[in-house]
């Protein structure tokens, strides 16, 4: 079989851009930045995927969805590779995806605010949470954190003090 019959790397990326995240289906796996590499080893297509959180139950589902998509597009010879480093960071979530998250009711991550393990102390000492997250519904920044942990590993629970709605914040790592 001639290699010219194989789909191009760009074509594969465009197909992967149609695979939604199973828990937040408005964004795709490429927009989340978890597809790290697409390449051929001889005629075998290799897709490197990095987990968001190490225990995230969606990881296995994402692998399956990627595999199904590529099979549907006619790729027969493929391998998925788990890549741990560099570890996933919310900085890789694309600008477009951030707008989609907001429209979906999830406040997008604020870059550079990942925890260093001492940020709670800094917040206590300053008497307030230094993070200012805008409510995705009404836009108010008069909001408060209810918990650092939310409905999925990647989110924290927040509440708007103006429109009183609770909302998810896509926390930084």
């Amino acid at each position, binding site marked *: 079989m001639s290699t010219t019959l194989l789909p191009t790397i760009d074509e594969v990326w465009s197909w992967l851009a149609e695979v939604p995240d199973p828990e937040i289906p408005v964004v795709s796996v490429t927009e989340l930045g978890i597809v*790290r*590499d697409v390449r051929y080893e001889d005629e075998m297509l290799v897709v*490197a995927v990095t*987990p968001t*959180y*190490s*225990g*995230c*139950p969606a990881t296995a589902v994402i692998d399956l969805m990627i595999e199904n998509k590529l099979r549907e597009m006619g790729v027969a010879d493929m391998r998925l590779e788990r*890549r*741990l*480093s*560099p*570890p996933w*960071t919310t900085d890789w979530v694309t600008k477009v995806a951030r707008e989609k998250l907001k429209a979906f009711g999830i406040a997008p991550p604020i870059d550079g605010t*990942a*925890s*260093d*393990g*001492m*940020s*709670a*102390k800094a*917040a*206590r000492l300053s008497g307030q949470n230094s993070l200012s997250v805008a409510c995705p519904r009404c836009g108010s920044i008069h909001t408060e954190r*209810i*918990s*650092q*942990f*939310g*409905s999925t*590993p990647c989110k924290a*629970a927040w509440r708007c003090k103006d429109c009183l709605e609770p909302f998810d914040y896509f*926390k930084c*790592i």
Partner: protein
Amino acid sequence: MPEVETTADVVANDPIMTDAALRPAFFEWLCRLGDNTLILGHRTSEWCGHGPVLEEDIALANTALDLIGHTQMWLGLAGELEGEGRDADTLAYLRDVMKFRNILLVELPKGDMAVTMMREFLFDAYHHLLLTWLSSNSSSPRVAEIAAKALKEVSYHLDRASDIVVRLGDGTAESHRRMQDALELLWPYTGEMFKADEVDERLSDAGVAPDLAHLRGAWESNARDILEEATLTMPDPAGYAHLGGKQGRHTEHLGFILAEMQFLQRAYPGASW
């Protein structure tokens, strides 16, 4: 993305993974890391559906999930290193009590919220230092990449645990009393984190792991800061320490965890779904 390729190549060519002389000690050491996160993850998961408020229930379940994720990476690497066909599941579900290498601190019953959160804090403060060292200094790129991944999550665990220790310690008379009791109950189990044996020394000599005695100073100073802020009295760091977990000598509590965790694989060997 050339920089990603380089990282992948470095990781694939880990010289420590092929050092046959180091292998037995390296395997033991990886089991210690994986068993600590497995058993603490299991203990923490016992709160699922029983948390005092919904947000705490969810936070504890998320923490447990992260720890089980770390277990899959550490025990997965241990199995790969051993090269005898055991994966993370086999190691978690088919070893008996004496083969577990977790420290005693993590197997103690979850107790009340004070015991649960004080243990999280004492362990997280150590875990955070250990992973920080491993991610930037370990001579094994495979170990360093797992540590870097886990560190991001453990940073949030330490944030939350520190915050709650301060809030409950410096809270009501009742919450203060419970936190001080929890601290005194757990304190004699913290010494094991820093007590190096032959395995720790071999790994430290090979540059894979830190000198545990070295971590102790930073841990004590971080712990003291938070405990003082929480108006709690830190017990004597040089006091008595319960030892043995890292070598497989456990308290009576571990067997009960395994009886529950391993039941399915024991009753229906090889069952999968």
